[in-house]
Structures are given as C-alpha cells and as structure tokens.
C-alpha cells in the first residue's frame, strides 16, 4: 500500500507544474502576456514617466510658468536668450521658463487627454451599452431604439471629428474645459459603436444563452455577463483614444481654440505658439512637439500591445 502512495506522490509531483497557474483570471493571463511584450514595456515606461511628470511636475518646476524674464527676449532682433543656468531649456517668446512650462504642461496635457477620453468613454459606453442592451434583450421596441440611436451615431460619425470638435469649441468659447469637452464628444461615436458591436457579439454567445436558461434576469445578464466581457476592446480603444485626444487637442490649439490661459500651459498650445519662431528658436517648438509625439506614442504602443494581448486569436 505504502509503495503505491509514494508512486502517487511522485506522479502528483510530476504533474504539479501544470497546476501552478491556478486561480488566474483572463485578465491576469492577459497581463502576463502584456508583460512579455516589448511594445507594452516601452509604452508603459513612457506613460509612467509622463504620469509621474504630470503629477509632480508643477511642484518640481523650478519657476513659475508665467514668470517673464523681461529684457531678455527681443522679437524684433530675434534675441532669445539660450539655456542659462536657471533656464535649462531656455526661454520662450515672452521670456518664460521653457522647462517649467514643459513640466506644468505635462499635467495639462494629461488632464486634457484623460478627461476627454473619460468623457468620450462614459458617454459613448452609455449610449452604446444601452443601445446594445436594447437590441439584444429589448425585443421589438429595443430593436427600434437601437436603430434610432445608431442612426444618430452614424450621423455624427459622418461628420469629421475635428469639425465636430471645432464647432463645439466655437459654441463653448475657449477654455481648457472646452477643449476637453470638444475632444471628448468627438470620441463618443467610436466608443458607442465599439461597445455596441462588442455587446452584440457577446449577447449571441453560449454563456449568455446559458445564463438565460438559468433564469437569470435580463438586467443582470447585461450587467454581469455581456458588459464585462464586451469591455476589452473598449478599454484598448480608450488607451488609443488618449493618444488621439492629446493630438486632437493640439490640433484645436492650432486652430486657435486651445486653452488660452498661459498659467496652464499645454503642449499643444506651446507648440502652436512656438511655430512662428521656428526659424531662429527651433527648440521652442521641438520640446513640446517631442512631448506630444512621445506621449502619444507611449499610449499608442500600450494600446496596441493591449489589443494584441486581449486578442483571443493570438492567445497561445
């Protein structure tokens, strides 16, 4: 008997490795795949640096971003004082400390990105979610509701997003809030479509049928089954949307609808302001441009990596 037990122990030992992943949810698995992706790593590091800067930036900024070094900058003579010891990245066209403005700008830029995306995400998910739920579980009336809502979304989608943002900015007047709203609203249709499509796919799945056959109530099926499983692509999209938001905000600034408050410098505005001086002070444009590009790249990389990690087709 005892020999038999040892054999079983030995077998258990040999097969033990397989069991080691017990308790891992799909997300954990995705995260594991994400960690091994170089793209995600680069993106993640960029974003982490950016977020840290955005959080602590205004505190570690050596100078007030609106403080002007007068008598240093003379536009009519193309005089921009270069990097002096206290201004690491030099001065801008009004004699303000470029480094401090970059640091403070990181926060504003992140804020615009996050709030705009959050807005687009929330509103889009709400519209898409309700529409998807109505279509999948609302019977005839639900289908009608969905048709109307989706026609509406399609109409909005037919408008170039930048135009939409421009006109919203025109309605609301210029401010940071406006930029966030304008960029966010322009993203609503994408989120709505994505979530609806994803929910529709999920609502045809077997486990939803199983839940129905268990007698689970519709509302719970939607909220506990369909929705959580549909969020993957939406979350990926929101990472990508963060990048888009930052760039769209810059475009709005370019069109003169950015946040005009110099106390809240934002990279897009800084880039636009710097462009006229590009010939003799190229650095003034390059810093914010690189800031935008690298940050957007960070989010895009992470988003793409997430997309790959969550894609069931690419699962091993």
């Amino acid at each position, binding site marked *: 008997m005892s020999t038999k037990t040892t054999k079983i122990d030995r077998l258990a030992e040999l097969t033990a490795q397989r069991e080691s992943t017990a308790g891992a949810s799909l997300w954990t698995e995705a995260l594991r795949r994400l960690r091994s992706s170089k793209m995600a790593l680069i993106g993640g590091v960029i974003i982490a640096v950016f977020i840290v800067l955005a959080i602590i930036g205004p505190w570690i900024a050596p100078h007030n971003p*609106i403080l*002007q070094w*007068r*008598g240093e*900058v*003379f*536009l*009519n*003579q*193309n005089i921009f004082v270069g990097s002096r010891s206290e201004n690491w990245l030099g001065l801008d*066209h*009004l*004699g303000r400390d470029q480094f401090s403005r970059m640091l403070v700008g990181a926060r504003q830029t992140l804020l615009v990105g996050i709030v705009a995306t959050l807005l687009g995400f929330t509103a889009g998910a709400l519209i898409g979610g309700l529409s998807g739920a109505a279509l999948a579980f609302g019977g005839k009336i639900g289908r009608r509701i969905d048709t109307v809502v989706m026609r509406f979304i399609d109409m909005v989608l037919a408008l170039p997003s930048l135009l939409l943002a421009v006109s919203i900015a*025109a309605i609301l*007047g*210029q401010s940071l809030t406006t930029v966030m709203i304008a960029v966010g609203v322009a993203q609503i249709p994408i989120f709505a479509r994505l979530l609806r499509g994803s929910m529709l796919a999920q609502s045809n799945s077997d486990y939803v049928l199983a839940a129905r056959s268990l007698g689970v109530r519709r509302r719970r099926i939607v909220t506990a089954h369909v929705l959580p499983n549909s969020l993957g692509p939406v979350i990926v999209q929101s990472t990508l949307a963060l990048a888009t938001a930052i760039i769209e905000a810059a475009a709005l600034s370019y*069109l*003169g609808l950015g946040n*005009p*408050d*110099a106390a809240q410098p934002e990279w897009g505005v800084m880039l636009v*302001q710097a*462009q*006229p*001086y*590009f*010939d*003799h002070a190229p650095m003034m444009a390059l810093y914010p441009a690189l800031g935008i590009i690298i940050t957007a790249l960070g989010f895009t990389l992470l988003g793409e990596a997430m997309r790959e990690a969550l894609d069931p087709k690419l699962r091993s």
Partner: protein
Amino acid sequence: SSDRDNGDSKGSGSTGTFVFGAAGDPASLDPSLASDGESFRITRQVFETLIDHKSGTSEMEGGLADTWESNDAGTEWTFNLRDGVTFHDGSDLTGEVVCANFDRWYNWTGTYQNTTLSYYWQTIFGGFANNENEETPDPNYVGCTAPDDLTAVIEVAEPSANYPGGFSLAAFGIHSGPALEAYAADEASGEGDAITFPGYSQEAGTVVGSGPFRATGWNKGNGEVTLERFDDYWGDKAGVEKLVFQTIPEESARRQALQSGDIHGYDLVAPADVKTLSDAGFQVPTRDVFNIFYLAFTQDSHPALENPEVRTAVAHALDRQNLVDSQLPEGGVVATQFMPDTVEGYSQNVTTYDYDPELAQQLLADSGEEDLTFTFCYPTEVTRPYMPSPADLYELLRADLEAVGITVQPKALKWNPDYTEVTRDGGCNLYLLGWTGDFNDGYNFLGTWFAGYQKEWGFENQDLFDLLERASTEPDVDARTALYEEANEFVMDFLPGVPISSSPPSIAFSADVNPPTVSPLTQEKFSEASFK
C-alpha cells in the same frame, strides 16, 4: 538658405508676374461695396479716387482731380479733373462720369442700403435719396454737378471733418461711365439667408476703373485675383506686366511662401520674422506708424473702473516700453494719446503715465479698491496692423496688472465675430483694440471712439462729446487742429483707456523686386513695383 533659387525666368524685366500674398479673399471687386482691407488693396490698383495720398505719406495730393477746393462753409467741393485720363474700356474721365458715380451711390436702393454693402458711403455721406430703413442716417450728400468736362462739384448739407479726406477713400474709386450702366443689369439681392453681392463685383470683366492695372481674373478655386498692366494709363506705367494677389490665410504659410519663392511679397509680417527675413536678404521696409493700440475700459461694466484713480493706477502699472521693445517690430513706439504723432491734432502736452508699479499700487490702495478682479478680453487668431500677436501682448499686460495686485480673468475670443461683438456690447472690463486711420484727420481717430456714448467705453462725458462735435463741424483746418489737441489732452486726463503703442505694420518683399514705396495708410501702389 532661403534665397530664391528660381524666379528669374518669370521675373526679369517688366514682363513678369508679381505675386503678393494676401491674408484673405477680397469681398468685392467693386470698391464701393467693400469695407475690408483685402478688397481695397486690390481695387486701389484698379480704381482711382478724386484725391490721392502722396506716395509713402498720409499727405493728400491730387488724384483724378488735379486740384480741389471748397467754399468757406465747407459744403461745396469743387474738383478740377485731370486731363487725358482714360478708363480701361477706353472711355474718358469727365465731370459727368464723376457725378454719375456719386449719384449712383446716392440713389442706391434695396439691399445696397444695407451697411454690409454701403458701409463707407453711409459713414462719410450719410444715407440715400430714399432711405428705406429708419435706422439709416440722413443723407449729407446733396448733389453733384458738372459745369464742364473737367469739373465736378459736389455739394453736401453739413460741413464735416470727413471732407475732403473722405474723397480719398478707396471705396469712392471712380468707375467708367459704360461700366456703371453695365452694373445696373446685375443687382444685389438680399432675400433669403444672406446678402448676395451683385455678380459683376464677383468676377473680373465688368468693373472698369482708370488705375494702372486692369482686373482680368478672379480664380476663386485658387484664391487668386489677377491684374494686368493698363498700357494707356495716364501716369507712370506699371513696372510689372501682371500682378496677382494670392490668398494665403496662415501667417507662417505666407512667410514660408515668400521664403520658398512662391510669392514676392506679403503684408503683416510678424515682428519676429522681420529680422529673420531681412537677415536672409529679403526686403522688409518699415512703414510710418498710423495706428493706435490701446487697452480700453468699459466703465459701466465695473464700478471700480468709474474711479479715475483706478484707471490711472492701471496706466501706471503697464510697462509699455517693455512691450514695445520686446514684442513690436522696429519702429514701434509707446503711445501717449489716442492718435499717432503723424496726425494733425497730436498734442505734445498730454498727461503721460510712466511705468511705476509702486505708484500704481499706491493709487489702488488710496482708491480703496483693493482685491480688484477684472475680466480682460483679447482676441485670438488675428493679426491687426497695430496688434501683431494679441495673445502675447495680453500676456505681457496681464503680468503687469497682476504684479500690482489686480486679478485678471482672461477671456479669449475669436476675432470675428465674437470678439468685436462682445467688446462692442461692453461685455468685458478691459479689452485690447486699436485703429488704423483711413485718412489724415483727427476725427478719424478721436471721433471714432468718443463722439458720443458708446457701450464699448461705457461712459457719459458730455464735455468731451461736445468738444468733438465742435471739432467735427469746424471747417477751418487750423482751428480744427487746435480743437483736436485740446480733445487729446482732455482724453488723456479723463483716461477712458490706456493708449499703448503705435506699431509699423511690416511688409516684406523678395530680394529680386523693387518694392513699391510703403505707405503709413497701407495703401501701397503696386504700379511702382518692378523686378530687378
């Protein structure tokens, strides 16, 4: 290097095409329907006015009229026309043609009576023979007679500071007789959603003037207006065969276009580009200043602003010299009054307000108005001759105000229509604005602002209003000038706003052209331009 690498092929001798970068499309090729600089820049090359300005100055000289005089009351203006002037269609200039022009404007009906189409007529000559709208002002124009072929006599009801300067306005360019008849066939319409310009004003072909260039094409798809040399011009013939105005809305795009050789010149060069361009071999001639940039108070929008001490404090708080030095192009000056020194009526004896932040703080403390908060409006997306980069200028002034403890709530607005509308309606405590003179008369500056109560200033000052009324109707030039000086001194004591600067709007040309003489009124005559 940004030197032109080509252009010789098209630019040598007098046969080339001269391309000028414009900031916007013209509204109309008929100057009498226009009120914007982009239109006038073009029509000024095609049409001539009775009175002209001496090249490069704001001094009046004979235009289509060799000489002119008025009666003592200033109500009858006689113009002795130049002999031998032919229009582009071959017809001759006569007194009757001049009268036909004025009578046409006077007899406008319907949509033409809308300020959109007849802004300058209404400003200078009042209303029409039959005013169709009660808000239209009464006409000041009485009639025009042509005693002989080379004389035109124009009678007005009341003397005004607008005369004779008004006769030099581009809007009153003289059209040929046959052209006027052709216009009648093509009416403006105003039903529906908007005012439609009459068709002839929208394409080259019908409009006929007597200037050195003929309008030969308007390609809207390209945003290009093409003018060609008029070989029978009475004066010096144009130096280039073809003159093209190409619309390039973006400022930096205009600069790059000049640098890359796509255009030969453009206006409203950003201060920062002046040196860059001239270092690179471009010609950046400086105009004399003929404008004023000011910070306005809307007094009834904020009780503190009605307190003269507060206004004075603000004036002392502003470091205007720094603004001029750092942000304005070469030639910019700090303004002491609401008028550049080139205008008749400029006073040497106005009260001045030096940069003195301590004094400003002191004054604020004395006034008992502490913890002041003002809304401060400034326009975005616009460059005006007096205000090269509003947002940056605002930023400097804001810093000054905050330095003396005034809290500023910024309000950035699109120039057109938001900014002009909001400021005009008195929607801001402080705001930035300016003015470029149309002709050299003090009323063209002071009268624009202080002739009566205006919401944008928000004050009632009957003494000032009366003073200007008197100046306006004073036919004697010297007496009028004295009154303007008095008014300037009065204004600077009252301080309804702080005049900040006058800046020369820069214009740039490529190295291979002989540019026209620049004009303080921004009325360059492109016939003077030629290729080297």
